[in-house]
């Protein structure tokens, strides 16, 4: 799995950080997404897919490899 984030689309909701805190974080100054792990381990895949669906800005894309 490879994770892509479209940073200009991000609206800083923080939903992804609440679901998958090992993969996503937020910038301190404006809450915009920070991708911590572009290729997360299998144990986190379900949470990452959930984050991608829940993201209110559709700013997360999961590419299954």
């Amino acid at each position, binding site marked *: 799995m490879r994770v892509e984030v479209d940073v200009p689309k991000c609206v800083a909701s923080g939903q992804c950080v609440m679901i998958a805190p090992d993969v996503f974080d937020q910038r301190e100054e404006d809450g915009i997404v920070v991708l911590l792990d572009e290729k997360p381990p299998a144990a986190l895949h379900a949470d990452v897919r959930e984050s991608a669906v829940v993201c*209110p*800005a559709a700013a997360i894309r999961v590419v299954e490899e």
Partner: protein
Amino acid sequence: MVVGASAAGLAAAETLRREGYEGTITLIGEEPHHPYDRPPLSKQILGGQWEADRVALRAPADLDALGLELRLGTAATGLDLAGRTVGLADGARVPYDGLVIATGVRPRRLPGDGGERAHVLRTLDDALALRDRLGPGRRLVVVGAGFLGAEAAAVARGLGMEVTLLEPAPVPLAPAVGEPVGRMLAEVHHDHGVALRTGVTVTEVADGGVRLADGTLVEADEVLVSIGSVPNTDWLEGSGLTVGDGLECDEYSAAAPGVYGAGDVARWHNPLFGTAMRIEHRTNATEQGMAVARNLLRPDERRPFAPVPYFWSDQYDLRIQAHGRLRGHEEIAVVEGALEERKFLAAYRCGDRVAGVLAVGMPPRTVRTWRQAVATRAAWRDAVGELVPEGA
């Protein structure tokens, strides 16, 4: 079958597939477009920063991979619960085993708003039509200072328009965010040169502008009517489903056995707050779409839909974020920062608990901590302090 091809309907269809359903999924949409995102319509699309293709909710390849039976540009016109079919505008009757109703809302209208200068803002086509008419020096009157109207006013000011924002209430957004925050937002618009007039009722869109209840004309080149919305439940009339302010659903978001409601159209009982709610916010559409798909797939392991609602709004350089239930609050306390600095976090009390929080310009960790207080039903006394008696 999923009726409604916007955020909630797409989330339901996608979740059904992702969680192993291999049968036919029919996704019916009234609009001709592939599922797209609405929040940018009153922001980046209206402001011209984004082209229309940027609002697609899924890349075409990702949408194809779901293997959906897409029927776009076709409204649902009737439901036969006993026969398990949905009737479409093109005359087709499509059978289903399970049904998700996610038909959303449509804008409320004003008398006389059919003319060329009058606009509403719900669909991509609405946004593109209004965008083409915005420009420096032109006069825009926005009727209704809710989030949609306020965002559009901010965008139009940014494009150099003369903007008048008309609102019937004394303080804009007071029921949604409380008077102190509503007053702050009113000041923000004033600072940016919007002529905000409160306590005025618009009766119609007229030649040359809008007519107020006292008979005066407020002149405008373009008029945006943003006075709330109406759930799209007409097609359910006579179906046997209960329709009031939206489609009535239980705590599982079910409207009948095997029939679920999701998104703006659905009014359901949220057990986290012990009350019925209907939420017209982007995040809820997705979360509810996912939840009903799971309940539909696994009828023996159904889970109540008990989210902490979330919304955000961008106005000028401010991003407003709110978690929980703010409507019906009995007290507001600014618990971080200060309203005057336009960097703060306000807590909203319902009964003896923290029911909601609203933040502007606060660090994300702080906002997440307070959201957690809402999710865990934190007592106001513990999280904020002593209760302030009514009217104090």
